[in-house]
């Protein structure tokens, strides 16, 4: 269900975005440029520039309106060269901040024009609203409840209508003076009673009941303690889709423990602040995004004054999504460093994608993170049984051990299980 609802959500969202952008194509000149410009802006400029207010760099909308393209294009391409050439305007512009602007020699003139066009138009308002609307419709359980409610309602309406029709008919008949012959037993209760005297029906009914209850029970028990799809509400609506997907930030940038420790580590807020000191996603009226504001609140950070207040610090209490029981030992580094190649092969992970996807799923498409894998012992063991680790032959640690095994199991692939990866004490101690 989870996946279906996600797909549903994704489809709707892209449809809305597409629709709004098409709307823009019609209304705004150079609309195609705006779309391209938005993407480029997010990719290249957003870390230092906002449209409507100064951060590291100046507010862009004001600047593009003020300055002409003839200056802007060479400036954006290589501001250092332009300043060196003694361009007065450039020297003036460089005084905005002591930090030097990056050069973008790879951008074409058209691309720069697109960025300028986007900066002039600003963020398409409707897109944001549409996105918000989609979010509210979100959860699948809600829609199911809705559907059930509609069905129940319509049944009630039908029953009521049927009664009303009957009543009217009777009234008509009464008016016409025709005596009403009460039909056999008439009441529903009598019918049901009669039905239950039929032994075959009772047997059939009981059988159905047992099958239904049994299968519900079985499924319920099977799934007890398995939290695939668990997606709790987090204190901050952090989007992995935006960070890992669109912005292509490496997993390790935030989860820096994963490659050296047993914990992947939830990033501390100083990691967030590396970017979010600048990236504030302000709305049109200059309000900092409420989600980013939560980071500032936790740190006691005042964005305007750029100061920290230790007294206001309050850690963020994330809700743990992937939770192994305390008696199971799991080490991230063992899997993503030592076992990377085998896991990639076993789970068919695209070489472009991080190995993390093997267990955490397509994190780069998750608006909010959820548990992708069942994290049951069976799931662990299946991989330990199947994964091929023969690639470790040349690794000094494994050299002797694998050589010893190969003598016995000629031709068969070497799995973690053969090296003791299924033994209780390897994970439970």
């Amino acid at each position, binding site marked *: 269900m989870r996946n279906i609802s996600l797909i549903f959500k994704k489809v709707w969202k892209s449809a809305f975005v597409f629709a709004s952008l098409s709307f823009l194509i019609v209304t705004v000149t150079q609309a195609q440029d705006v779309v391209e410009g938005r993407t480029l802006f997010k990719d290249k400029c957003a870390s230092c520039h906002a449209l409507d207010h100064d951060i590291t760099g100046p507010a862009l909308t004001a600047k593009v309106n003020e300055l002409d393209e003839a200056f802007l294009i060479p400036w954006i391409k290589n501001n250092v060269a332009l300043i060196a050439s003694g361009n007065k305007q450039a020297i003036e512009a460089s005084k905005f901040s002591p930090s030097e602007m990056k050069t973008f020699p790879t951008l074409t003139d058209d691309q720069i024009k697109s960025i300028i066009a986007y900066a002039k138009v600003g963020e398409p308002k409707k897109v944001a609203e549409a996105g918000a609307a989609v979010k509210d419709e979100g959860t699948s359980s809600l829609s199911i409840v809705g559907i059930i409610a509609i069905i129940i309602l319509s049944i009630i309406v039908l029953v009521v209508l049927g009664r009303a029709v009957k009543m009217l008919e009777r009234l008509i008949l009464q008016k016409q003076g025709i005596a009403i012959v009460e039909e056999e037993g008439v009441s529903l209760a009598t019918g049901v009673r009669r039905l239950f005297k039929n032994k075959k029906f009772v047997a059939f009914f009981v059988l159905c009941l047992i099958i239904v209850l049994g299968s519900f029970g079985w499924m319920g028990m099977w799934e*007890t*303690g398995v*939290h695939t799809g668990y997606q*709790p509400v987090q204190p901050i609506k952090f989007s992995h889709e935006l960070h890992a997907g669109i912005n292509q930030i490496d997993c390790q940038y935030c989860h*820096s*423990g994963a490659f*050296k*420790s*047993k*914990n992947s*580590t*939830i*990033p*501390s*807020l*100083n*990691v967030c602040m590396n970017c979010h000191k600048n990236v504030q996603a302000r709305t049109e009226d200059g309000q900092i995004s409420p989600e980013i504001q939560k980071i500032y609140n*936790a*740190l006691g950070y005042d964005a305007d004054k750029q100061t920290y207040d230790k007294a206001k*610090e309050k*850690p*963020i*209490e*994330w*809700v*743990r999504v992937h*939770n192994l*029981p*305390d*008696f199971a*030992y799991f*080490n991230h*580094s*063992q899997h993503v*460093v*030592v076992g990377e190649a085998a896991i990639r092969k076993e789970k068919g992970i695209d070489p472009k994608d991080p190995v993390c996807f093997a267990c955490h799923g397509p994190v780069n498409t998750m608006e909010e993170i959820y548990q992708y894998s069942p994290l049951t012992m069976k799931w662990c063991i299946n991989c330990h049984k199947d994964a091929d680790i023969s690639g470790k032959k040349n*690794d*000094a*640690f*494994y*050299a*002797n*051990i694998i050589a*010893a*095994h190969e003598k*016995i199991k000629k031709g068969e692939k070497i799995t973690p299980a053969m*090296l*003791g990866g299924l*033994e*209780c*004490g*390897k994970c*439970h*101690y």
Partner: protein
Amino acid sequence: MESNKKYWKGLEELKNTPAFVENNKNEFAEPLPIEDVLSEAGLSTVTPRRDFLKALGFGLGAVTLAACQTTPVHKSIPYLIRPEEVVPGIPNYYVSTFKGQSVLVKTVVGRPIKIEVNPNAGIFSTGTDAQAQASVLDLYDVSKLKAPLLKKAETTWSKLDEFVKGELNKAQASGKKIRIVSSSLNSPSAKAVVADFAVKYPTTKHVQYDAVSYTGIIKANENSFGKAVLPKYNFDKADLIVSFAADFLGTWISGEEFTAQYVSNRNHKSLEKGKMSRHFQFETGMSLTGTNADSRIPIKLSEEGPALITLYNAITGSNLAGGTLGNNTNADKALKLVAKELLQNKGKSLVVSGSNDVSTQTLVNAINVAIGSYGTTIDLDNSNKRYEGNDAEFAELINEMNRGEVAAVFFLNSNPVYDATNSKAFTDALAKVALKVSFSDRVDETSDLCDAVAITPNYLESWGDANTYEGFYSIVQPTINPVFNSRQAEQSLLIWSDGAVQDYYKYVRNNWEATVLPAAGKTWNDVLQSGVVTLTAKPAGAYTFALSLDAVATSIANSSKALAKGNGKDTLELHVYESIPMRDGKHANNAFLQELPDPVSKVTWDNYLAISPKQAEASGYKEFDVVTIKDEKGTSIDLPVLIQPGQAMGTASVALGYGRTKVGKAGNNVGQNAFPFVSFNNGTLKYATVVKLSGTGRTDELAQTQTHYSFEGRNIIREASLKDYLKDPAAGSGNHHKHKVYDLWTTDKYEKLGNDWVMAIDLNACTGCGSCIVACNVENNIPVVGKDEVRRRREMHWLRIDRYYSFNDEKTGENVTEEKEIAHMSNLDNVSVVHQPMLCQHCDHAPCETVCPVLATVHSSDGLNHMAYNRCVGTRYCANNCPYKVRRFNWFNYWNDSRFDNYLNNEFTQLVLNPDVTTRSRGVMEKCSMCIQRIQAGKLTAKMEKRALKDGDIKMACQQACSANAIIFGDKNDPNSEVSKLLRSERTYYVLEEINVQPGIGYMTKIRNIDSETKEVHA
């Protein structure tokens, strides 16, 4: 059978008392209530069908409801700003110093959880003692104060400072004395702080005293050589060691260093070279050192002085008066032999005495000069700075206070109300002092009488330094921020003396940068990393002795006469001593230490009156009878009797350090305080007195771990004499006729292709001190169960040290070999002892594995016996089927049960838990896992670095803590590993190898350096 010696663990086993035989037959320590169930209502009543259905329905409903509970939400809270060096899941290590021992502290996300060995620390790089291992628990002690106290009410530091400074100024104005009372302070910076304080308040004097004092040695050295120091002893350079009641492997001065030195002359490496030192021990009570001696000769306290005079006369040919030993012929013979051998080993021998009497120690100095120990085995030029206390100064302090001359007194790491010889006199005198300030972390006996308690942090929260030996400096650095609102005593003193530098960290650093660091050519950062600075040692000089010994001999003879008042029945000579777990009682609230069995008596959670079996018979007491012990001053305590083989006739021993009343939940009212039996005469504290015993008619069962398990007289200890060993290294090991080995897995061959984790234990190196037990407890989250549960045989220790006694035959001096002869033995004084660490043997044919109905305990491909706790249903079949009795059952959730309130049952103390080891639940079996978390971590490090595992990469917690290096762990598949070599040694045997369980732990035979002459001594 090569060895048919009889060993026994306790007197019940030896005498085969009916109760022991009965208990031994029983499968369980306590009878199961099967009979009750069968005879009473149990099976005879009829359960009506309706009741059955009701119960069934209720059960089903309850289980269903319980299962409906929603999954709890787990919060995950990251750092706001993560410290650069911390990665959650990876431990950090910091060097620090515990009581002069340089150690390494393991911290996990900012909390210290384990003390390990600092490999850079020279003499301290071999191991740590039990106290150091247990010290992490003190940090998480809930009995500590959370804020400073002023007049018994919580206050702030500024108010406290204001009050103390005001009072100090008054004292200053009145010109009265100010006293800082501390136990020996071996921190150079702290001493400098005290000196600075004395500059600001010139009437200040620093009084150092130690509850267990070494003033006698210091004074004797001052008298003999003009050097008021404790010398550095080199036991490693001594081929012959003669100790008069000095427990130098345990509590005497620096047990850990001495153990490492002592063992280096007796362990497998030394034996392979055909070399082993010889050790004679003359002592009253059975000490740890006594159990390790080649020849142990019980002497009364009153015989100690005369014995030394006899020895001196025999060595030098002089004729000092007072050298008569009465009727102790064994001691007489032994002394003659010792004198002969000492003369043969001039310059390679060492005589030490545990006495605190100046005269006795002066005589010992004279003997050591005569045998040329100075410059070789004794080094007076690089002194040991652990103890500098002066008993006379402390006695004078009481007089000064009584005379009203003292206006202010500060207690720093000292608790005289508890451990002063005359607590009442001290308390009365203290009442006359205007300002009483205690630097303590809790309201202890002394702090309770103080105006202000300036609470101090644990050493793991502190900055500081130590100077344990001349030229050997180590650093104390904090591993966690102070948990409570505490402040270091040194910092308080700096603030109160308006010092120029008020931050103690800066003070220590300045001090080092001005003194030690330039001398060593190192920087502050070097020291923070290595932890120690060693300056070039001065050459140890030889010394001559010029004093006349006549006065000394007279003094010794007088003291011994005063002690020799025992009548052999109810009046006995009482020896009060430091026990290994409790030492001087400063850590009495440490549950790990309280539950650490005494290495000899195996008693936990109590002190007791130890008397010899013959003495018990003569006095008419049975084991566990509570007796009143009363001395001439009228002090009396009631303690249960423990029958201790090897205790000298006419004497009794009681351990110090118990009977604290204000230390905390775990340590309050455990045992009785024996400090009142210490007396002050001739300028030093004396730990011997004469007491009268009287029965109370009560009994109190001591919680002993000793006789909980029986080996049914099997051949599990194997030993040989050095002479036999030199002729045949396999002597006594039983390796000459090996049992035929059958393989249990004939069809499906079980091969260990990767690693094969095994262990070798050198019985000749193990001294039995027990620091491995505490290390194991801390590493593996092993719960403390308390006195009552230990009595029920429910202690949880994964690793225990079995202590076996055997006899020396009175007639031949041979160790008794035939079981029949034991029955005729009467002299239980002459016992030999072997310590054997016993832990899960990780058998290849493990009997536990085959009986587990749920496969909770299974074998791994690397030779370990795994225990999956979450699979275990608690049938306890495995424990029953284990021939080594090393499996432990969790009877309770010790971490969440109000009955175990003195240990883990609170969130603060639970911070000590090792996050890499599961805390076991009630109803689950557990046992030694061979520190599998360490094995896995070591393997992972090698895998990440893409290299093969090296021998020594992985160390067990017990192995690491062992100063004697008696435990060696490694991979048997690597033929060059140390453990492989040791297991191939001729000395190696396996316990119970005849039952073909194929254990993974090999033991190396105990070798005793005895010959016909030493046997003669015991004849």
